């Protein structure tokens, strides 16, 4: 993995990345360590980098919320995002067909509501990430509002005989 290591040196000194990797015990290459022994500038940077690593470690240890953030950041979002997109697409099919046939509006609203409720229940059961759940709720709510708005518009146009249906 570190065979070429052209990232370790720049302009005859260790790069910030290399200094950081040495401080974290991730880079133990002989020429990099020899350079530390011979170069006070890089040795000073290494000591400062080690301090920063420990300070950051302590700060994380004192912030349990950051660990929660970690769980969210590494959760398998992609499959659920795809499932959600599929659900949205499925919900849109009857909406589009309803636009072509307003008589079935009530049935469409029922269907979309059922899909929405089932979808939210299923995803809430599998997701522990507040941001994902709130995104789902937002999209479903928007969808529901759009349907209600469209329904109101179609009722209004039906009550106005001068307007083309």
């Amino acid at each position: 993995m570190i065979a070429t290591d052209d990232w370790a040196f720049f302009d005859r000194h260790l790069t910030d990345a290399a200094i950081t990797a040495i401080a974290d015990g991730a880079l133990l290459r002989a020429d990099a360590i020899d350079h530390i022994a011979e170069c006070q500038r890089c040795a000073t940077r290494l000591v400062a980098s080690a301090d920063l690593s420990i300070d950051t470690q302590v700060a994380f240890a004192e912030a349990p919320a950051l660990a929660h953030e970690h769980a969210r950041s590494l959760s398998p979002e992609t499959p659920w995002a795809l499932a959600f997109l599929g659900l949205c697409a499925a919900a849109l099919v009857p909406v589009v067909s309803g636009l072509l046939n307003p008589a079935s509006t009530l049935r469409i609203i029922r269907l979309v509501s059922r899909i929405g409720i089932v979808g939210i229940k299923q995803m809430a059961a599998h997701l522990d990430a507040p941001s994902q759940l709130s995104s789902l709720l937002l999209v479903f709510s928007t969808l529901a509002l759009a349907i209600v708005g469209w329904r109101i518009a179609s009722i209004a146009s039906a009550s106005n005989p001068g307007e083309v249906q």
Partner: protein
Amino acid sequence: MTSSHRMPVAESPEVKGEWASVEPVIAAVIASILRRSKRDADVRDGVQETFRRAIEGGGRVLPNSSQTAWLIGIARHVAVDMLRAQKRHLRSIDDDAASISFEPTTSEPNAFDRLDTAERTRMIQRALEQLPEVQRRALIAFHVDGLRYEAIARECGVSMGTVATWIARGRKFIAETLSTEEGL
């Protein structure tokens, strides 16, 4: 831990085990501060003293991923103590910029030390939120999950140099943010 006190430092399980690979780094730091060769007897003594203090200090409560940084910090203290002892002995060596730069920060706290814990945590959280996603995830994987660089690189499908760059930039940003906010 107590068993370590009964045996020579070099024979302790930590020194023979997970710390063995870090020993050249510790020697390099001490050699640089003392301005000696890595093979100098004083440097070797410094390395042993570093491990002795580490064993007594109980720093093994830190995750494995932070052990090297913690040992480097101890090595710096050991080397500065050795420098001071030499100066007291010779009474004629002027302080120079290099030795001053290695002085432990206890008398001159950095941005982290000047903040109370709760405020520091809030600032770090704010700084983390502003970080690019890859840097944030790399930092959290290292500090929270205790993953080594190799594991992070494997998980993200990038080189170890890239992981090192993410972590270096992330830490630098956090430190700069704290320094800036603290100065306001």
